[in-house]
């Protein structure tokens, strides 16, 4: 099977061609404002290096920073409103609390609270009131919201009411597009509804992006399905991106970590991805990134959808160095101008790359490395900064390798925080490789009531089977399915024996034999 992986980043667009487990070729090309040009160049370059025709490709996997950038720049966001099903609880803390004002203004954010929601044991706080819900939706519609997010209290325990509300709106108010909090976030009402609002605000952009890539597919000559990569390193069909764009939000660091694990053949490791301006550090366990346990702040908004636990620091190949006391490396960076402005490229700015060449860690550039005052101390500082980031990312003192990827990974020495550093082949294309190898997932979360007829093992087996069916319906190969995560949490303080079970399975993409 031949797969093309594409990673559209802020600075570069990377593309790789893989045949099963074999890396056939890759290309790095600067990202362009129109996106197409950069992607097309990278894809055509990668295909040429791999000696593969576009029509031989079986699947295209794409990771993009479009959505996170739109949010950070507060551009191209849709107007949206939120309906929270919570009354009589909930009025002491309204939606959009703690949002930056300019972001609320950018999406014209507005809300209504209505009856509904659940207690922690799944009993209703109040039943859904159809009339009240429709009235709230109409008022939001009049204020210009075509996108509405719906949240309800303890939707993580029971999501029926959110689904019921969506069905009602789809039937009675077909012009309104609905995003549900239970599809996106976890425990923590404020953070979960924040994620649902962000999702709603990105939907029209998602349509543009998906259509653009579908068009590009035609112009390059692909004759195969197009997938996007999700935050958790699995694939999502283009049609699902239209519904849940926020799930592809943080795929950049995920793809780079997955790619690093794949290229090095090491499934449990720390990954250090050093770019021009920043360094991302994360941990892979069994080839997948460790996810953040608590809330994650995106574009100054607290959310809690599943995102890789990544520590970003302001250190990269282009980081500016202050060689006088107090010494400093970064966070200011020459970024993509490294190739003009660093000493080793004939420029006049002292950068981290100059230091790396001068202390013998890297051989690059068109000019000799400059004489650096305090080079020894700067080397120590550089190692200290990276060691700190690695130490903060570790979850135990278990010895594991550090996989270094990205263009700036030459900054690293042979060891970090006492751990061995490995630099796999094609490490500067790890993101696109991570996209190309992404798998299909299926996840099901349910609260079950255990009884004599239904014990814990049987319940887990049933839900795993349901998750398998979801994955298969999304295109997973039935023979390759395995469990990625399982959690079962007893709901305490309840008569009876209730268990909240959540299962995620992953499998390889199944392809019809063709050509």
């Amino acid at each position, binding site marked *: 099977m031949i797969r093309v992986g594409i990673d559209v980043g802020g600075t570069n667009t990377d593309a790789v061609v893989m045949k099963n487990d074999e890396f056939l070729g890759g290309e790095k090309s600067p990202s362009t404002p129109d996106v197409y040009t950069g992607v097309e160049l990278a894809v055509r370059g990668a295909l040429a290096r791999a000696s593969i025709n576009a029509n031989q490709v079986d699947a295209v996997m794409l990771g993009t920073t479009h959505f996170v950038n739109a949010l950070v720049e507060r551009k191209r966001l849709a107007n949206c409103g939120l309906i929270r099903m*919570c*009354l*009589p*609880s*909930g*009025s*002491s*803390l*309204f939606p959009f*609390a*703690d949002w930056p004002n300019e972001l609320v203004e950018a999406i014209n954010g507005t809300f209504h609270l209505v009856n509904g*929601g659940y*207690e*922690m044991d799944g009993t209703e*706080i109040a039943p859904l009131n159809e009339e009240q819900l429709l009235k709230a939706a109409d008022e939001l519609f009049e204020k210009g919201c075509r996108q509405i997010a719906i949240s309800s*209290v*303890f939707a*993580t325990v029971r999501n029926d009411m959110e689904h019921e509300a969506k069905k009602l709106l789809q039937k009675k108010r077909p012009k309104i597009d609905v995003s549900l909090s239970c599809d996106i976030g976890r*425990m*923590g*009402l*404020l953070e979960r509804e924040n994620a649902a609002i962000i999702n709603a605000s990105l939907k029209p952009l998602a349509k543009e992006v998906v259509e653009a890539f579908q068009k590009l597919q035609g112009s390059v000559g692909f004759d195969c399905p197009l997938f996007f990569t999700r935050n958790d390193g699995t694939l999502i069909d283009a049609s699902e991106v239209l519904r849940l764009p926020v799930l592809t939000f943080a795929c950049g660091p995920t793809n780079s970590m997955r790619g690093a694990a794949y290229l090095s053949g090491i499934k449990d490791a720390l990954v250090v991805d050093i770019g021009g301006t920043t360094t991302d550090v994360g941990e892979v366990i069994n080839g997948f990134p460790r996810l953040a346990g*608590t809330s994650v702040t995106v574009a100054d908004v607290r959310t809690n959808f599943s995102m890789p636990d990544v520590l970003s620091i302001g250190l990269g190949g282009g980081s500016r160095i202050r060689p006088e006391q107090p010494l400093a490396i970064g966070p200011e960076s020459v970024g993509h101008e490294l190739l003009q402005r660093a000493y080793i490229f004939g420029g006049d700015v002292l950068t981290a790359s100059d230091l790396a060449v001068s202390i013998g860690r890297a051989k690059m550039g068109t000019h000799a490395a400059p004489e650096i005052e305090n080079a020894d101390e700067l080397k120590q500082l550089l190692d200290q900064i990276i060691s*700190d980031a690695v*130490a*903060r*990312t*570790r*979850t*135990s*003192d278990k010895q594991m390798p550090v996989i270094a990827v990205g263009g700036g990974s030459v900054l690293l020495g042979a060891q970090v925080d006492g751990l061995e550093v490995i630099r796999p082949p094609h490490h500067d294309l790890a993101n696109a490789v991570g996209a190309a190898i992404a798998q299909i997932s299926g996840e099901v979360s349910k609260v079950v009531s255990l009884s004599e007829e239904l014990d814990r093992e049987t319940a887990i087996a049933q839900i795993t089977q349901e998750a398998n069916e979801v994955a298969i319906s999304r295109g997973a190969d039935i023979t390759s399915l395995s469990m990625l995560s399982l959690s079962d949490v007893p709901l305490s*303080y309840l008569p009876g024996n209730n268990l909240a079970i959540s299962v995620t399975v992953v499998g390889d993409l199944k392809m019809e034999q063709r050509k």
Partner: protein
Amino acid sequence: MNNPAITKIDFKALKYIADGGAILGSGGGGDPYVGRLMAQQALGSNNTVAVIDIDELPDDALILPIAMMGAPTVMLEKFSSGEEIPKLISMMERFLGKKVAAILCIEAGGLNSTIPFIAAAQMQLPIVDGDAMGRAFPELQMVTFTLGGIQATPMAMMDEKGNGATFDTISNSWAEKLARALTIEMGGAAMVSLYPVTAAQCRNYLIRGSLTKAHRIGQIMAEHGANACAALVEEFDGTHLFQGRVRDVNRVSEGGFARGTVKLEGLGDFINREITLSFQNEFLIAREGDNVLATTPDLITLLDIFSGDAVTTELVKYGLPVNVLGLPCDPIWQSPQALEIVGPRYFKLDYDYKPI
């Protein structure tokens, strides 16, 4: 402390108090984030809450402490309706046959450092500059009022649906037991008012100035960021107990409490040294081998080396570099009688209290 007492609280002051409250939480008391946002909403952007000294009130003035009781996860999902507090207060007033004059914080640390501001803002009542712990403690009876034989009841509880209850119990442990059971029926969290006191009772046992102190700590954190630890040591006669990286965290959940130990490996001036912290919701003791650096009731707080923010016992994780700050407790906790309810031996630690 030579800082002028705060006299009113606005948005900015609330943020300082929440950040300072996280330091005074001594690692426990829950995340004040949701509580701060609720207090902000109750306050509105242009209003303020008046802060008064206890001596401004006549002897017979009634003061009501307000707090949240129950499971923190419920408080993150099901927010209160906003109507609990007025109902709670009118229940207490009926029960006691007296009008309330001011609101009080029961604990200056954690989530409950912000909840009373919701009450003060909604009821247009002043809030007394002080609290009954000077920090956070894990159990209901660990308040200065216990030293004066003051009962936790009459106590009132209210849920978001409008259900209320009052308690009149024979002991504080019965109050804890019955209130806990009802909290569960109310969906896992409820608003409570307990330890109603008169200004005269309060004068003898109040830890005075703790809101001013929390506010000042928050201010110092905002000014000094990563260097907050040193500035706090200077201003509050504290001790920089240690600087190190977390190299082990061992947690056990026991009897409804989060217990465990944290091992730190020295950094900077503390290199090649190692200390161990023990906690039960809050940090209880810091030891280097058998040498005690600090124990409860003094405050032991961790600050993230890079951000200067307080690190709660739930957020301590492997690899995190921290400063360990020791702050002296209020002198009221240093008597033998007080140490019996909050000293190291109460927590089954076989060490004597050694003031820092």
